[in-house]
């Protein structure tokens, strides 16, 4: 049996685990990271995206914290949320310290904190709390993958050890204190880890269908599934996030924290997105961000469509409808508007200002790719036949909606009149949109020091958690709201290392 003795062991080498490992080794601790896959990065390696850092200024921190807490109706744990907000200030310096830079920085002025939703300033989920930093990637690759690789290299250069293909499966506790863990190498040989502290940063549970069903009530499917389903996981496919950390922590008496899904709106099936959701094969992804008419299976509107570029909100609203789907419906006149005048919402990930040959793209998806969620019809009645939308309700909805367009006031939901575009002229287009899942996360209950708590809310000494597995208390229960997880992962990584360092030196 192999034995490894360190001050601090880290389970997982994603954003949170590596942020913790680098922070701890810079403080002089002897640190080892255990990773089940043959490389660093976790699920985040599949995303370019951005992160959010609140400005290091009391006024900004206070406002961001209170906006967030009010947003969650104080369901979030205030100490956990405050730790995130406060430590997010350190993110830009940490990333620059890895020798990396940003491709863009979008500041949020104090008065705009909490005042903007959607990605107006560069953020697709929830509300704006801080400044947004877009990762600079290599080639067409993912910025976060480069951050993880650079962090791993820095950690090793500073004397740290990363054990790849070596999942931690068991945490060893003596009394109420964690003293070690058991990992297994590629051949299945046991590695006994003697450690003064352990940070569990093993990610979410998107790739564990049983956990997804049991803890969120949704059904796991992948992005190419062609029959909808309750939820469609697409963002980090095959990332092997199976809730290992949660299981190991619960086994030694750790309490179950809030668990949920960070979702978004997604047209599934062939021909739309690739294995990496950032590679789109056509402009459907951009269309479904637009604030035109959205209806549900009953043919009724269900949201002020201004929210259509707020992914978390749309994902949630869609999941609340019959058959857990919604439809974006538009006519030929709106197609011309999108092609000639341009889009109303520019999507930062696919920043096209105008669309091209929308009808041809629809025809290709329907006829060549055989995508069952894309529709093109000569009349509204035909569209209802194809989609199964209630025709009578749809007729009334469209009549009313067109009247709102004429009178330039949305009597139903008060949508901004500039987004009111009638549905009148053939052809008629529809996309059936489901709730996609960015990540299924949470499960480990922590406090503001990232310490893991047991069922009686007592601290399990020497045990910390950070990142997606510990994100539940940032949002509280009921379910997790949509906001940039990368920000939380970095911040909890720093904070857990700070606290572990203090504990070890006590």
């Amino acid at each position: 049996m192999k034995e490894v003795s360190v001050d601090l062991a880290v389970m997982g080498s994603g954003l949170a685990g590596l942020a913790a490992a680098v922070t701890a080794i810079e403080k002089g601790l002897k640190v080892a990271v255990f990773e089940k896959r043959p490389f660093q990065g976790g699920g985040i390696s599949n995303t370019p995206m951005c992160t959010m850092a609140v400005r290091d200024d009391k006024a900004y921190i206070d406002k961001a914290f209170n906006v967030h807490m009010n947003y969650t109706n104080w369901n979030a744990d205030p100490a956990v949320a405050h730790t995130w907000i406060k430590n997010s200030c350190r993110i830009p310096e940490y990333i620059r310290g890895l020798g990396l830079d940003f491709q863009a920085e979008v500041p949020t002025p104090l008065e705009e904190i909490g005042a903007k939703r959607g990605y107006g300033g560069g953020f697709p989920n929830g509300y704006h709390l801080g400044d947004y930093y877009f990762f600079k990637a290599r080639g067409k690759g993912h910025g976060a993958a480069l951050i993880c690789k650079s962090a791993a290299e820095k950690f090793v250069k500073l004397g740290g050890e990363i054990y790849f293909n070596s999942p931690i499966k068991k945490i060893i506790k003596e009394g109420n204190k964690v003293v070690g863990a058991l990992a297994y190498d590629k051949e299945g040989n046991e590695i006994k880890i003697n450690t003064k502290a352990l940070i569990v940063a093993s990610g979410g549970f998107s790739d564990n269908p049983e956990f997804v069903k049991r803890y969120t009530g949704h059904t796991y499917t992948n992005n190419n599934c062609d029959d909808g389903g309750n939820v469609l996981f697409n963002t980090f496919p095959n990332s092997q996030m199976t809730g290992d950390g949660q299981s190991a922590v619960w086994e030694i008496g750790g309490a179950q924290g809030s668990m949920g899904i960070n979702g978004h709106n997604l047209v599934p099936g062939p021909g739309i997105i690739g294995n990496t959701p950032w590679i789109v094969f056509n402009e459907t992804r951009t269309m479904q961000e637009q604030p035109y008419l959205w209806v549900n299976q009953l043919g009724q509107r269900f949201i002020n469509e201004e929210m259509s570029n707020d992914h978390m909100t749309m994902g949630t609203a869609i999941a609340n409808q019959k058959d857990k789907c919604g439809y974006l419906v538009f006519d030929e006149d709106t197609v011309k508007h999108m092609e000639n005048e341009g889009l109303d919402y520019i999507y930062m990930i696919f920043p096209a200002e105008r669309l091209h040959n929308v009808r041809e793209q629809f025809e290709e998806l329907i006829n060549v790719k055989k995508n069952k969620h894309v529709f093109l019809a000569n009349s509204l009645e035909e569209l209802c036949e194809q989609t199964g939308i209630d025709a009578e309700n749809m007729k009334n909805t469209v009549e009313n909606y067109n009247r709102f367009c004429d009178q330039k006031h949305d009597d139903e939901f008060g949508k901004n009149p500039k987004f009111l575009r009638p549905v009148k002229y053939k052809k008629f287009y529809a996309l059936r949109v489901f709730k996609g899942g960015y990540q299924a996360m949470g499960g480990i209950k922590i406090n503001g020091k990232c310490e893991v708590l047991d069922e009686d809310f007592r601290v399990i000494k020497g045990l910390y958690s950070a990142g997606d597995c510990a994100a539940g208390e940032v949002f509280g229960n009921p379910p997790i709201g949509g906001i940039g997880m990368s920000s939380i992962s970095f911040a909890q990584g720093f904070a857990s290392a700070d606290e572990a360092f203090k504990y070890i030196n006590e």
Partner: protein
Amino acid sequence: MKITIKEYCVRCGLCQDLYPELFKYNSEVDAIDINYDEVPEELTEKARKAAADCAVTAIFLK
């Protein structure tokens, strides 16, 4: 020209999405399969692009 992929490849599948002629994600073994032992002449430019686009510099050509 031969393509090799380093062990530290993060399996994001970007190469498959951009250059499906050359790469295929193999979910059974969680690895990227290379479609050719020897890259055909007409695909060598794509192979160069793939190496340049890889997020973590895991694709090498020789």
